[in-house]
Structure formats: C-alpha cells, structure tokens
C-alpha cells in the first residue's frame, strides 16, 4: 500500500523498449533489450510482460519493475513496433541485419552471435515467406484450411503473443507453457491448470481432477497401439473419430508450439502419440500430427516432445517414427513449415545423422569410389529431396570439384557423427511397427 509508483514507471507503456534483467543458462545476469508487451497492476504492484528482442517468445515473462533498466528506456516510435491487433505485415520485425545494427547502437553489451550476412540469403528466405503472406493480404481472413501451422501472422495480436496459462500439471509433471493456448478463458487465471494424464481433460482444481479420475478409466491414449518396443509405444488417433482427445491434445500442444493453429477442427489429422509405459499406464511423452491427405508431401504437421522429456532423444525418435510411416507408405515426406528453432535443430540433427549413416555405410565396390545420388538417399530415408540437399549443404558435404559435384566426408564430420550415434540409444525398430496406411481419398472425407 505504501509502495509509491515512481513517475517514470507510469510512463512505461506497451511498445516501450528497455534492457531487462534476466539470468542466462549459466545463471549469469544479462540485460538484453526487451519490449514491453503488456502492463498489469495487481494489488498496487505493476507487472510488465516483456519480450526479449531476438529471444524466442517462449522466454517472454512478467517482470517486476526492479528488473527494468529505466535509464535506457525508449519510447515507441510512431510506427509502433508492437504487433497490431490485426497483425498487419507491417508489424513484422525488420530484417536481422538492421536489427543488429540498431541493437549494437543501443546496447553494445548484448551478446549476440550472428552469422555473417550472406547476400542472396535474405532474398531467398523472403521468397519462401511470400506464399504465407499472400494469404493474409493485410486483412485478417480465415486462415487456409490445410495444415496445422499459421505462417501468416494474422493471429499475432497481443492476446496470442502472451502466454495465458501459467502452469499445467500433467501426471507427475508440471509444465510451464511457452505460448498462448485457447483453453477456456476462465481457466487462464488459475495458478495451475490440471490435466488428466491420459485423456488430457483440463480441470480447474485438484479436487476436480480427483473426481474426474474416478470416472476416467483410460490408461493410455484412446487409439490403436501401432508400435511397441520396450516401454515405448505409439498410438494412432483419428482426429475425426476421437475429437475430444484430439482437441485436448492440441490445446496442450499449443502451449509449446508457437505456430500451431487451432483455428479449425481436427478432422483431417491423425495423431501419433508416443508413450512410455510404467505400472500406472502409458504416459504421453510427445506426439506428432499428420494430415490424412497432404497436398504438399507433409508427413508431419505438428511435432512436440513434452518439455519434461526434451533433450533425451525422444524428439528424434518421433521424427524417426514419422519417416518410418512414410517408408511404409512408400512416400517421401517433410515436416510442415514453418519450423520452430527447436524443430529445425531436431530435424537437421536427424537428417544429418540419417544421411551420414548411409554415406558412411557405403562400401566401394571393386575399388571404385563409392557414389550415391540424392534421389537414392531420398528413397532410402523417405526424406524429401530438398531436405537431403539442404542437409548436405548444412553439413558442408557437397562441393563442386573439377566440373562435378562431390560429397566430402571430413574427419570432424565423421568423428562428430560417430560420437552422436553413440549417444543415440533410442531407435525405432521397423519390425515393431504394425501400420497399414489408409487411402483417405477413397474414404469419406476424413
């Protein structure tokens, strides 16, 4: 009650930028530049929702005034950098180069590792974005109906830019959501949202969860188990036949997937839920969804390893499984775009290991130098050709030498691969997969 809001604090409004204190992974103090997205006043105390510039949104948080570096406060310029309500393309952050320049000018202390700007790269990335921008045209319209990810920013209004759930309790775990998820609004004010571990129903209190558990006798995802090896199982859930579960799963997943859209129903998707079994049942570890019929060779729509299971190889397992399904289908596939940062890293890692595995195993017959085509790699792995090429480029394997392209496996690549593979214990065993693809085009729609 006695706390007096300083006049300067009153001036901080949405759109202001200033350095905000945060701890890095080494638990060191940092003062990255941040933007104020929202201000709230609870019991006379002001809280500021900040987005750290050039940090992923998942790190956005409510901060107390004492973490703000008021000395370096910048007021929003006329053309506000805050995302507008309707998500006009104009609100998109400027290109990385300009950002860097400005930031170094403003805050020289920011640690930043940026790749040397490559001419041509920007143009190309712009090119890939064009498609997605076309659909929005500046006017918020209903998003396209295929796929599961929003690539246009029509939803990038202030509400969806802010996390709305503070904490989720799921089985043995508590999860800190990373992004907005459209759980019923009345539940967003709860300190903890309780989910049934098996049917993923959301409940407002532990008491409700207790009551629910007396009625819910699921001990595994409500679908057919199509893979089991050891404690790892995969369940296939039809988004049309099992709407409730699919929706609950999507709501949960949305907490950790920025670009996932829940705009439309789940009918055209299949959900492959990976579980780990213990005596209590089959616990969800992660999942990926997949369009029943993809017009663009997507074999994954959304893919997520729940945070408690991250960085333990499950993501790669999910990816591997998705390609195993594609192998059964006899197709090549690629994940739906855009990829998240973690998605990109995971996929690159998977692609790299998969391709290197093949390249290293190639034996030269009759003394000739072993060789392979990109198409062959693609066929063997079900990885789409473009992804093979981008991986080869990323790994710097592909070179132009004496008028032809060659693949060069340098020592550190080989060593790094071998080390990585030693750590990769979790693998999908195709023999344990019991999966018959359905031709969805011949059934009733979805």
């Amino acid at each position, binding site marked *: 009650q006695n706390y007096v809001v300083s006049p300067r604090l009153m001036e901080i409004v949405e759109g202001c930028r200033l350095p905000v204190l945060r701890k890095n992974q080494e638990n060191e103090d940092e003062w990255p530049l941040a933007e104020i997205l929202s201000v709230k006043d609870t019991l006379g105390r002001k809280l500021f929702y900040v987005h750290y510039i050039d*940090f992923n949104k998942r790190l956005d948080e409510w901060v107390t005034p004492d973490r703000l570096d008021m000395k370096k406060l910048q007021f929003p310029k006329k053309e506000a950098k805050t995302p507008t309500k309707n998500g006009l393309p104009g609100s998109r952050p400027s290109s990385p180069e300009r950002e860097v320049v400005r930031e170094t000018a403003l805050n020289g202390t920011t640690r930043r590792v940026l790749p040397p700007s490559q001419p041509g790269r920007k143009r190309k990335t712009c090119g890939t974005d064009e498609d997605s921008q076309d659909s929005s045209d500046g006017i918020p319209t209903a998003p396209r109906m295929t796929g599961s990810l929003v690539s246009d920013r029509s939803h990038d209004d202030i509400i969806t830019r802010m996390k709305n759930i503070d904490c989720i309790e799921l089985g043995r775990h508590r999860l800190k959501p990373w992004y*907005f998820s459209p759980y019923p609004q009345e539940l967003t004010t709860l300190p903890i949202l309780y989910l049934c571990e098996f049917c993923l129903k959301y409940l407002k209190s532990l008491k409700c969860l207790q009551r629910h558990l007396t009625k819910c006798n699921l001990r*595994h995802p409500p679908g057919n188990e199509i893979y089991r090896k050891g404690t790892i199982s995969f369940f296939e859930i039809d988004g049309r036949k099992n709407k409730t579960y699919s929706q609950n799963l999507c709501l949960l997943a949305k907490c950790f997937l920025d670009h996932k859209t*829940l705009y439309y129903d789940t009918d055209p998707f299949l959900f492959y839920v990976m579980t780990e079994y213990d005596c209590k049942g089959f616990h969800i570890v992660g999942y990926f969804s997949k369009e029943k019929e993809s017009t663009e060779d997507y074999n994954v729509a959304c893919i997520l390893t729940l945070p408690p299971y991250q960085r333990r190889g499950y993501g790669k397992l999910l990816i591997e499984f998705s390609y195993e399904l594609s192998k059964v289908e006899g197709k090549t596939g690629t994940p739906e775009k855009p990829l998240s940062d973690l*998605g990109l890293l995971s996929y690159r890692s998977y692609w790299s290991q998969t391709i290197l595995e093949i390249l290293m195993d190639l034996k030269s017959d009759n003394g000739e130098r072993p060789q392979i085509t990109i198409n062959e790699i693609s066929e063997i792995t079900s990885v789409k050709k473009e992804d093979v090429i981008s991986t080869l480029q990323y790994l*710097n394997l*592909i070179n132009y030498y004496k008028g032809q*392209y060659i693949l060069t496996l340098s020592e550190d690549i080989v060593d790094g691969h071998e080390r990585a593979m030693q750590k990769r214990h979790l693998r999908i065993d195709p023999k344990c997969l019991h999966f018959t693809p359905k031709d969805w085009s011949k059934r009733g729609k979805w």
Partner: protein
Amino acid sequence: MSKLSFRARALDAAKPLPIYRNGDIPDLNDCVSINRAVPQMPTGMEKEEESEHHLQRAICAQQVFREKKECMVIPVPEAEGNINYYDRLYKGEFRQPKQLIHIQPFGLDYEQPDYDMDSEDETLLNRLNRKMELKPLQFEIMVDRLEKASANQLITLPEAKLLLNEDDYLLKSVYDYLVRKRKNCRGPSLIPQVKQEKRDGSTNNDAYVAFRRRTEKMQTRKNRKNDEASYEKMLKLRREFSRTVTILEMIKKREKSKRELLHLTLEVVEKRFQMSDFSGEVLSEVSVPLAEKTVHPAPICLPNGNRHKTENKVKSTPKHHPHNVTVKAEPHFDFIRPHKKSSRKPKLDTLRPPSRPERPHTVNTADIKQYDFHSSGEDENPQSPSSEPDEENDPDGAFVFRRRAGCSYLSPLTEQSDGSPPVLAGLDAMWQRNALTALSVPRRCVGVARRRLGRGGRVLLDRPSSELDRALRHLDPDTFCPSRSLAQLLSDIQACRWRYFQPRPLHQNQRDESGRNALHEDDRKGGGVTGTSSSRNTVLGGITEEQFQTHQQQLVQMQQQQLAQSQQQGLRPSSNLPERPHVHVSNTASLDTLSKTLDSASAQFAASAVVSTPNKDGKTHNTAVNGILPNSGKHNNKFSSSGSSSVRPSGASSKPLLAVPQSLPHGHGPLSSVSAVSPAHTHLNSARPCAPSPPALKLATVASSLDRVPKVTPASAIDSIGRDKNEPERLALNGIETTVAMEVT
C-alpha cells in the same frame, strides 16, 4: 575468394555423387569457394525467428563443435518437477497387455458426466448428506444435465424439475446452489469448454475460439479429380435411385391391379350367386370372348390396364374381334396376364359348354376406336406384316421389325389344346408352304410358289417343282384377276372390313355338322361375289349405328389411302384388283385351280365360314384369295378369319370375303400385298395360329379332304391344306408372323 568465373552446373539429384573421405579429399580450398554455387536451401523457419539469438548460438556451436554443448542449448521455461501425490491421485496399476492395444470404435463413451465436482460442491454435498444421501456422481450428473440444458442462463426451476426426476428438496437445493455458483463463475458454463465459433462470423478473430468447423471440404486444387469421380458416382446413384422409384411404382401398380382383380373376382362370384349361376354356364358364356381376347391384346402395354377397371364383362366382350372366334378354344396365353381375366382362364376351358348361347352384340365404342386406330396404323406401314422379325434379319435395314408405340405384341402360342396334328408329307408338305401363284405383269400363272421377303424388301418366289406344274402353267392368270371397277373394288373391300367387326360369337359346335355339309355345297355352287354385299346387312347387325358410321368413314379413308398408294406405285388398279379375281374364281368354284390356291389358312377360313353358315347360300369362296400367296398364307388367315367372323354372327350367309388382294405386283410385292391387308387381318392372323378351335379345325380338315379334293386337281394338295395347321413347324412360323402382325395393334 573472388567470384567464380564460371557457373557451376545445377545440382542434379539423379546424378551420382562420388564420396571422398578424409585423406583423399581434394583441394579443399577450391571446394569451399565453389560451394557457393550450390543454391542455399531455405531452413523452413520464419525469418525473424531464424535470427534469434539462442538458435544462432546453437547452430554455431553445432557447426563448431559438431555436437551439442550443454550451455549452448536453446533455453526453455523449465517447470519444477515431481508431483509427490501422483500415486495417490492415479490409483491402481495398469497392466500392459501382451497384445497391442486395439480400441473399439465408440467403445469409449461411457455416459459419464462431464462435470467434475470441486471442493465448493463438496461442502454442499456434505451439508446435503446430513439430510439425505447424495453421491458425488449423482450430484455431478444433476449438474451436468442442468448445465447442458442451459445456455447463458441456467434453465428455470420448473424446467429443471422436468429435466431431472429428483426429490424436490434436493433439486431445489442444488438448483439454488448452481444459480449462485454460476453468478460467480467467469465462464459461460460450469463445465469449462473451449469457446465455440458463432455462425455470424463475429468470432472469426477471437483467439479463444478454436476448432472451427471446416465449412468448405477442402481446397479443390488437389482434389479436383476426386470431386469429378464422386460427382459421377452421385449421378450414377441418382440414376439408380430413380430406377428404383420406377420399379416401385410399377410394383404399386401391379399390386393395385391384383387388388382390383380380387375385387372383380369377388364381384363376379357375387353376381353369379345372385344369378344362381352355379353351373358356371353364364360365366362361360360371358367369358368366351375373354378367352379370345387374350389372344390379341397386348400384355405388355401398361395403358391397357386401366381400361379394365371400369369395364364389366359385357363391355369387354365386344372388344374381341369375331375372327378370333375360330380360335377361341385357345386355352393358353401364359405370357399374357391381362389382369383379372387370366386367372379365370383355366376355368373357361373346363367350363366351356358344348353349345354356346349367343353373345350380346354390344360393342364398346372405345374398343372400336382402338381397333380403328390399329388398322389405320397398319395402312401407314404396310410392309410391317411381311417383314420377318427374325433377329438375324438385321440386314433388312429399313424393313427391319420395329416395335411401335401403342402396339402390343403377343408371343407365339406353341401348343394347341386338342387335336393331334397330322404329319404332312409329300405334296401335303408342299401345299403347306406354297400356294398357287400368278404374276400380274407378265401375266401368267407360275404355278405353285411361296413368296417371301428378301433383302431390301424384294419379293422372292420360291417355286417348288411338282407334278402339277405342267397343268398349272396353262392356267389363265386372268381367271385370278378379272378387271373390276374401282368402285366395285372399294365396296368389296369395305364389305370385308365391316364384317371384320362383327362381334358375333360363333357357335361352332352347334354347327359343326351342318357346316360340313354346307361346305360341300358351297364349294360346288360357288358363291357369287355379290353375296358379299348382300350379306352385309346381316353382318352388321350387332353394331350400333354410330359405330358403324365412324368406322365406315375410317375405312373409306383407309381405302383411299391404299388406292392412292398403289397408284403412286404405278400399278394399275393393280394390287387391289387382282385379289378380287381370286375371290371370284374361288367363289364360283368353277376351277380346280381355285382349290389349289387354298392353303391351310384358307382352308381354315373356309371351314369356319361354312360352319357359321348353316344356310348354303353363303358362298364360301375359299379364300382362295390367298392364292396369291404370300408367305405361308398369313393373309389368308386374315381373310379367313374376317370372313368367318362376319359370317358367323349373321348365321345366315357366309359371305366370303374377298377382299384381300394379293397378287404379286411387279416387284412391289410387299407393298401392294400388304396394303391390301387390312389391319383386321393382322389380328386374325395372330389369332389363327394360336387358336384354331378344335371343331373348326376338324371341320376344315374334313371339308377340304372330302369336298374339295375331288374338284381340285391335285386332290392331295388340298387335303393337306386342312391339316397343316397343326404342324409344329408351321406353328412356329406362324408365331413369327404373328408377332409381326401384332405390330398393328
């Protein structure tokens, strides 16, 4: 690192890439610089995210260290850990089944309330439980149902009472509690639910609305092909459904008819009862015509059905052409199921009394009209009777048999009820198929021949050789066709046709004997052609004035058409004329030749005519007319039948008909001869094969064998005439013709 002076070839995914390892890696510097030529693939990330600090750091770390460093991972919000009450929360253990878990579709929905009790509810429950027992589940079910029945406002208490069959006190307590609870609840419902879209589109940008329905199925781009296929399927489905509807309608019609049949049968029985017709006499009397009727009416044609509805028996009787009388014994018409009549059929056979009372002579106007229609139809299409409906006759081209709308077609009857057909041999066989033939243009008699229709409508004469040839060759063709005035001709034709309509029944049985005698005399005396006209009045007796008038008009019209036709063809008075002569000849019976022209049909005719004419003045000229023979005496039949019918009713004079024309016109055979054929003939024709009544048949046989034979040069030939009818082969043939003839109807 200067720009390359050459452009690297595009990367070809189908081209093998040699793999170099460790030591044998060539000049790396070169490679690196060249590497730029490989187009950079997009990462697939959003551009601004791609540049995020932690990601770039991680990417760099990976490129530098070739593995992840713990400190270089992308930081995520961490949640603290273990829930220590987990085991208490999730009670019990779950055994992993040996088999993969397979879920039964829809096996999941236990009807459990979606509402889950919270601690606030628990206190209420505890309070209530002091007075009554209320289980948490019960409470949840109540709340669940109330909530699901409510929208923004809780339903009213009375509504709640209707909805829940609970104790009033309990309900009231829970209801009041819910009202309060809802007031404090921030959500629209006590059961938290994801916000639903509103139809008005106001929620299009609401971030909390999720899982909207996909209004359009999908973008058609990829599925267009699909859509086409399903569109076609829908069309097919529609067609099949409409077919089903048609079938159902037909079934409905059929069942209605059945019901009607039942009613009518009942009616008949009642009437019979009233009339005390226990012996079935009246019934059989009345139903004779029905039996005959079955011979011609079209079974297939639906419109027919309606007519029966209103008709009583009397009315329907006249419908049958008298010619059929010859045939009336015909017991079967299996394929014909003309409604109620068919069921009575068997009865008729058994009930037919030896002697038949006269039938009423009323004629149904409608029936006559219908009939007329037919005849005119035939005139328009004179060839039809002569064209063979054989399926192999496709090459007939324009002459091919075609079904006509409004016609009914009967299938051939293959069985005769009584009389064993005599086996024919030798001359008999010849006469069976052939007839004495004269040509009109080179005016001469060609002897015995059979006419048939060739390709393109040509008329072919098949001339078997026989001992008679020599004698026949010397016949004067003029005896067949004396020239006559057009007027005369006309009137003759008319006379014939009128007779055709004579609705009189025949009383064959009665006259059997006398008929036989008559035949003798007839032949000897020969009837004058004049007889025809004289007999006319009597013949017409049964027809009302009005009917007569209309019919006559139509006939005149027909005749005119025929004449016009024949004249156009450049025939002399031709086709019609020649016939006359035959009749003439035959009537006079002056020549042996005449008798030779008799074929089976004519014999039959003769017989029937005789039968029906007790008094001898009727001149039965055997319809020698046929002499000109058309194929297997089809026409003859007609004549004979028409003749017989006409004769019968009057009972007096058998005026032979002459009518029919048949000489072989020059090459126009089919046309002219056909044109001469009256529609009535066609009917008869059809009737004949199926039906020679046994007595008539017998008579004919007898007559020909006894009487004529003597006169005719080739006695045997005539003999055969009478008998051939039953010959199976013949019948088959007739069957075909019948079909053709039926076209008329």
